[in-house]
């Protein structure tokens, strides 16, 4: 496959940046999208040009590092995959592919396609945890009975890898799907009840302070989420938030 790539290049966070055209040839349909970018970068290095900076780590869809807005969609046109799991067979020979960083005021570009997603870390720090005694006499979590449905639903919420595709896909750059998944995974379990009120209030407060937009329920986040995090999480967070607000 021969492809034309329109890639966002930006030297640093202060640079204006812009799209630059590149040609890649002999791309195998079996390559992952990141491998295709590796081929491009090898070519650029051989030509003494600056390679394209992009995030990646595990390359097996678990770490949430790879991002990229590919042809107008977070993680590209496939469903339920991260960019590292996206295969070039999803494209056709001769295609022009737009590759842009995830766009949100709360995700400023660091360089090229790499964005700063530490706003998610700060939201997690605000309440995405439970306090457990780890001094040696920790109580085994399995000693507390948990309803099977709740356990399964909490696990589904916990599969959020915090990649930010929800924010990138949302027309409002809302982080509600991410935050709601983190709130839900604890709200559904007995271990999460002690800090439930503070958790949801603090995480939503931090989310708002980071400059994410307001959710308007378009559902784009759910469709583009590589882990299939459901909108039910957002509804649950709304309930948790209202409950917590009434409690004070």
């Amino acid at each position: 496959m021969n492809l034309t790539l329109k890639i966002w290049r930006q030297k640093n966070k202060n640079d204006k940046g812009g799209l630059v055209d590149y040609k890649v040839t002999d791309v195998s349909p079996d390559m992952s999208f990141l491998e295709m970018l590796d081929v491009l970068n090898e070519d650029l290095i051989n030509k003494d040009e600056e390679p394209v900076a992009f995030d990646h780590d595990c390359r097996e869809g678990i770490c949430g590092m790879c991002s990229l807005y590919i042809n107008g969609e977070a993680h590209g046109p496939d469903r339920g995959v991260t960019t590292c799991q996206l295969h070039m067979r999803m494209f056709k020979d001769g295609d022009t592919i737009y590759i842009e960083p995830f766009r949100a005021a709360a995700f400023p570009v660091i360089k090229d396609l790499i964005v700063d997603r530490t706003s998610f870390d700060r939201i997690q720090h605000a309440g995405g945890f439970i306090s457990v005694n780890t001094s040696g006499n920790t109580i085994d979590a399995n000693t507390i009975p948990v309803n099977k449905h709740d356990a399964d639903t909490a696990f589904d919420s916990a599969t959020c890898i915090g990649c930010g595709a929800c924010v990138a896909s949302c027309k409002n750059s809302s982080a509600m799907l991410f935050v709601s998944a983190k709130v839900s995974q604890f709200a559904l379990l007995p271990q999460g009840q002690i800090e439930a009120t503070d958790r949801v209030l603090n995480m939503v407060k931090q989310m708002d302070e980071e400059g994410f937009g307001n959710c308007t329920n378009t559902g784009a986040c759910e469709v583009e989420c590589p882990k299939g995090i459901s909108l039910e999480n957002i509804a649950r967070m709304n309930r948790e938030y209202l409950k917590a607000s009434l409690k004070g």
Partner: protein
Amino acid sequence: MSGILDSSIGRKFAMALSAFFLMIFLLQHFVINLTSVFSADTFNEISHFMGTFWLIQYVIQPILIFGVLFHFIMGFVLEIKNRKARNISYAKNNGAANSTWMSRNMIYSGMFILIFLIIHFIDFWIPEINTKYIVGDMSGMHDGEFRYFHELQEKFVPIWRVALYCVGFVFLALHLMHGFNSAFQSVGANNKYTKGLKGFGMAYAIILPLGFIVIALFHHFNH
């Protein structure tokens, strides 16, 4: 409860509550308008009751006006905030791949509804308020009979107004196609009933505006 409206979820909740109120109002408005197709007398009697009963005039009506203003103002406030949340747009964005046109363009359908509402208020509400509270005529009578049905028919004589109302109702339908179920999601109602509710919401979003269109056309062609 302190500061709930300062948060994104609080604003969303308030937006949904005003939407519920407006959707209930819309339903009763439709039912009353529908009576005009079947019986001029019934329409006159209900209109007179609605226009003179103190609870509706002095309690419900101000709440309605507040609800309408709140929904529009909050809609614009949220739109401005949301635009600020993405300072650089995508060069290529395939929104149709993951969301409906209606859900992505609520601000535009809302703006057309606002224009329609202004015209509707100028057509019906302001003359009504003028007659009752400026002129001071609470009788509802004109030339010895109730004026409401006659006034309604008169308004729908010009084809341009009928066409304008039809366009307004089409945008109302588009707004409701997303807004109905979105309001339920905003108040945290997403459960085993959601699928059925989506079907009901779609029916509500199509049947009510279509009904309003039929009523407008009926009076245009039966004048």
